């Protein structure tokens, strides 16, 4: 039997295939298609202390083999999550992880504390990498100091496993990853979206209401693989790799690069069933190559 389970610090996933924050709503949107318990984890939409209206539309633009989004963290706020969204998952098995975004350290702490006893929650992803908000977001994630401080503060205010989500829009992502490790993260996840922009040449105006947005999808996969590879060699805590995973072959690439688990965002839009197909493909690949645990995959390139 192939062992697909992975340990991310204090968090254990039954398998390494997860869906990324922002692609899967609050966990219930795809319920009619399949049970989320089939997945290693579901990262919920980013949440802020108060509900946020988000950015002006248009919020999405398709680009070559990718897309730009500038949702701007539209969300129901921590109260909405606790009162409506998490209760809606009651009775539904699965590993649900909240994704939290504050404009200050205090706000991160506030959300983390509020989530402490939330039912149905297995962990917290600390989003210091959203490119689509004016305050906080990526402004924290480009600073090692801020990343470490936020991680440490969240670490202190919750007993849940925490994962710090990193932005690729930096000169050296390893520095930020090390800061997250130093701050006490159980794992890091990367990459969030690359800053991008598109312009309507007829109207001669930016296509996004927010002017700039975050680039995701297959287009960015080589950038993500490289960052996962270099981060996983720079820190000791596990890495959740993402950015353009669309097929099981893509997923294997990330494991070989050093990821312990992978996350699927944009590809869920093209095929909501892709996470299950990817899981199946991974399993078959391991079997075919007589690799008895997913954990071993990351070792092939490490030896180099």
């Amino acid at each position: 039997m192939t062992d697909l389970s992975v340990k991310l610090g204090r968090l254990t996933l039954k398998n390494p295939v997860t869906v990324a924050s922002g692609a899967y709503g609050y966990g219930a949107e795809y319920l009619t298609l399949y049970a989320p318990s089939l997945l290693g984890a579901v990262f919920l939409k980013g949440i802020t202390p108060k509900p946020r209206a988000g950015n002006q539309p248009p919020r999405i633009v398709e680009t070559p083999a990718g897309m730009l989004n500038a949702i701007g963290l539209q969300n129901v706020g921590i109260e909405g999550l606790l009162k409506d969204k998490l209760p809606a998952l009651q009775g539904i098995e699965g590993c649900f992880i909240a994704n939290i975004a504050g404009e200050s350290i205090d706000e991160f702490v506030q959300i983390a504390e509020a989530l402490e006893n939330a039912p149905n929650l297995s962990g917290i992803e600390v989003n210091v990498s959203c490119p689509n908000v004016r305050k906080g977001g990526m402004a924290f994630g480009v600073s090692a100091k801020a990343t470490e401080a936020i991680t440490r503060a969240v670490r202190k205010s919750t007993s849940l496993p925490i994962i710090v989500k990193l932005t690729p829009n930096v000169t050296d992502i390893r520095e930020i990853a090390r800061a997250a490790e130093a701050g006490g993260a159980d794992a890091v996840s990367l990459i969030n979206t690359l800053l991008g922009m598109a312009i309507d040449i007829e109207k001669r105006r930016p296509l996004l209401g927010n002017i700039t947005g975050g680039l995701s999808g297959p287009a960015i996969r080589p950038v993500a693989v490289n960052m996962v590879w270099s981060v996983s060699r720079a820190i000791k805590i596990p890495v959740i790799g993402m950015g353009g995973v669309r097929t099981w072959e893509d997923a294997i690439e990330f494991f070989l690069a050093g990821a312990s688990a992978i996350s699927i965002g944009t590809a869920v839009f093209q095929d909501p069933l892709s996470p299950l197909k990817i899981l199946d493909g991974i399993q078959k690949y391991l079997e075919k190559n007589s690799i008895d645990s997913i954990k071993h995959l990351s070792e092939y390139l490490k030896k180099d």
Partner: protein
Amino acid sequence: MNLVTTEILKTNEVKPGYFLHDYNAPLMAKTSEPGQFIHVRVAAGPHPILRRPFSICSAKEDRLQILFRVVGEGTHLLSKVMPGEKIDIMGPIGTPFKIEHKPAVLIAGGIGCAPLYFLALRMKEANIPVRFYYGARSVSDLPLHEEINAIAGELNITTEDGSLGKKGLITDVLPDRLTQDFAVYACGPETMLHALKKILDAQGISAQFSLENRMACGVGACMGCVTRTISGFKRVCVDGPVFSSDDVVI
């Protein structure tokens, strides 16, 4: 909502650049209501990555039909898929038109005829009298006008170039007073809905508008497709695509 990889039963270029596709989708066809759409995968590979939303244009027994116009890469790819080939579709999605049991005025602009044709079909079955207003740039942009003529009690056509019906915009030929005795349903380009809303607001009545927007997930998860309403941003995919004209801000 359902996700299937199914067979294309028929493709038909009804006018240059306008295609009717028939899909074999029993479950979807049975549950589809006018105003709802399906989300169609247009490429097997990584580009284009997003699905494309198309209104359901008819649904009968095992068959679900869409009508689309080739405007860009996605619809171009779709137009090349042949009967017998497979297609990956998801649906039915969205809040449909609420069928009111009073005489109906249906106002379509261009490709906006698709959901209204489906609506007219259902109204005919329910014996609701339909006055259909259908405007487009030119006669070659009126793909379903004969079919609509066959089912609507009345069909008024305008074209911008005068090549069929009255020359002008559809909002020019609406009945002088759209009273509360009628239920009004509309789908078309933003400029048309904008003009129509002005008329409706002036007369103090409301209609049901079917809106379009760029979509990623199509199921309410990504918050990408929101439109402005008087009560804040709402998702076109699941809160709509049908909204009250009173709600929308256009």
